[in-house]
């Protein structure tokens, strides 16, 4: 099966061929590199930009205003923080012009920890992104969702922030992308650029099909009765793994939801699950002060307070200025499998 980077590449290819995607651009996005995580290799409309994030976001807004369908990349979300004003403009242009203009652009950016990226290749962007009105924000945790959400993003009329959990970009999926060859070696031969000289290389794209994961729909990853776990991105597979182990070894049945869309999020699914379990744990790796999970806790409190069996919990990144390079530092800063397991276990065990 494809890994997430390949899935993104295939989605971009499908979208430029079939859905009107016009520009895939950013630093090192075009040939020869095709992106620092290979996500844009072989994409026809991919081009390299100057090293200027403000220029990149500005260009995307301008292209969108002129009827193009751009997908801009910020190489690491760690470097997006000088563009927040422009992101706000992309998000407020439709509203400020009272519905005169829309800005159908996509920003893709890798987020999160997991590759020993040190202070500036480990940031999360959940909290900042969800505080900006006017955007839709998605974050896949599987290659298939990555494909389907990217197609949905291209079909959107509004700005979409597409967050790529960098720790998952090289992880292979468990489901085939429609049209993807069953053999991953073959897939790799077809669409991965060769190492070294590649100026004459052209990808051979499989006959991909349209597959859209609607923005705003979460995914029930595992059913359970004792506690609800809501997560997204890097921590989602860890939560699923923790839940599986807890079910097998300790009889704790956690229901795991992959939020997938951070905004507008699928409160219906989350709410129904909390209704059932009475306990909810929100897991993400952004720093824990003014964290998007805290919004979800507030929402939980508003709708479910009197029926909760335990306080809704947040497991998130520590409120420190960065993720340090050394193993111990990274492990201590953001939720790891053990932290998630412990948190689920504790919540399941909690008695008023």
């Amino acid at each position, binding site marked *: 099966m494809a890994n997430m980077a390949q899935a993104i590449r295939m989605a971009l290819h499908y979208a430029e061929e079939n859905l009107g995607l016009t520009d895939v651009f950013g630093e090192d996005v075009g040939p020869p590199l095709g992106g620092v995580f290979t996500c844009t290799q072989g994409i026809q409309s991919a081009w390299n930009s100057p090293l200027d994030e403000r*220029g990149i976001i500005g260009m995307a807004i*301008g*292209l969108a205003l002129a*009827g*193009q369908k751009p997908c801009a990349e910020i190489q690491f979300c760690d470097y997006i923080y000088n563009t927040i004003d422009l992101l706000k403009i992309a998000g407020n*242009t439709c509203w*400020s*012009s009272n519905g*005169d203009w829309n800005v159908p652009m996509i920003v893709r950016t890798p987020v999160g920890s997991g590759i020993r990226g040190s202070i500036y290749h480990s940031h999360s962007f959940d909290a900042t992104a969800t505080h900006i009105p006017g955007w839709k924000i998605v974050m896949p945790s599987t290659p298939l969702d990555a494909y389907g959400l990217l197609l949905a993003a291209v079909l959107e009329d509004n700005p979409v922030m597409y967050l790529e959990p960098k720790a998952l970009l090289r992880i292979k999926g468990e489901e085939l992308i429609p049209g993807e060859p069953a053999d991953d070696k073959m897939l790799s031969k077809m669409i991965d650029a060769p190492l070294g000289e590649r100026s004459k290389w052209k990808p051979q794209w499989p006959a991909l099909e349209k597959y859209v994961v609607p923005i705003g729909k979460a995914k029930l990853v595992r059913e359970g009765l004792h506690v609800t776990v809501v997560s997204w991105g890097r921590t989602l597979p860890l939560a699923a793994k923790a839940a599986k182990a807890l079910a097998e070894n300790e009889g704790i049945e956690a229901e795991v939801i992959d939020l997938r869309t951070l905004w507008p999020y699928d409160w219906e699914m989350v709410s129904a699950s909390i209704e059932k379990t009475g306990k909810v744990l929100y897991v993400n790796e952004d720093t824990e002060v003014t964290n998007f999970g805290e919004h979800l806790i507030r929402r939980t409190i508003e709708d479910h307070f009197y029926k909760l069996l335990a306080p809704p919990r947040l497991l998130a990144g520590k409120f420190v200025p960065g993720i340090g390079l050394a193993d111990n530092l990274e492990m201590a800063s953001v939720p790891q499998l053990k932290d998630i397991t412990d948190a689920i276990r504790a919540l399941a065990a909690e008695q008023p």
Partner: protein
Amino acid sequence: MSRPRLVDRKEEKSSLGSLPAELLIRMHDLMVKARVLEERLIQMYKSGHGYFWIGGPGEEAFNVPLGLLMKKGQGPAYDYLHAHYRQSATLLALGESPIGALRQMKNTATDPYSGGRNFAGHFSKREWNIAPVSSPIEVQYAIAPGTALAQKRFGGDGITIVTGGDAGTAEGDFASCLIWSSRPGNELPILIIVTNNQWGISTAAATQHGEKHISDRGRAFNIRSRTIDGNDPVTSYLELKEAMEYVRKERKPFLLEAMVSRLYGHSSASGANFVGDEPDCIKSFEERLEAEGVLTRAEMDALRKKYTEEIAEMARQVRDEPQPDGASIYDHIYWEKK
């Protein structure tokens, strides 16, 4: 800041005769109309019919020809304008009615640019490729290369025009615009304009800017660049025409700095009173029109009177129009398919 350098047309005043009388009269008409509109907006502010005024009195001699020379329409075949907040004269020259500006001043639900949401002077008109004016200084310079790239790709002779003030060029976005517009092999059809009134609110340009001319910044990027007297509508027309023809044909950037006045200070925050010590482009143009027999004083007085009455009447009409509802804050957060 030194005086403007009139690159081609040297120190002599441009001759009225270089433009047909009809055009001179049309420019004058629009300049007066724009001035009367701005003065009405100021008066509305002063009499409590608006919370804030900012606008373009003192820039008419430049902004009117700009509007006249634009290729008006929707989509990449036409010109895009990424304006700042002093460009009512450009809008009027494009054919816009003054009533929209009055409505925005009074933040009525009928305000065609923002439905009562935004400040005066914050135009938006997709039908004519007028990108929404937003308050943060200089962001339009980061955005404009995007429409220009779409136009480069589209072909034809539509261009992108971006304007802003002098102080704002200190923001990195101005530099970004120069860089993105001059990528080798990917030069963009963009007319980069700076209207230099030598002030940023209370701060004199001479205290913050080491450049002799802001337009000199284009040279390092091999961008054709020029500083002109934006208080002279004939110079402005001719220079804009030349610059726009270059951009339309060559599909390459041009940096044009126009020296202009700020006749009512920065905004209502600084009182919005007539300053008196800066050149008034309408006054000097009228002197020339009269001296050269293009228009008489009486004709010009009548014109001003006509616009004053027309626009006062519009202001009265706007006064009774409804304000937006509180509940409408949730409208248009996302695009509603049309």
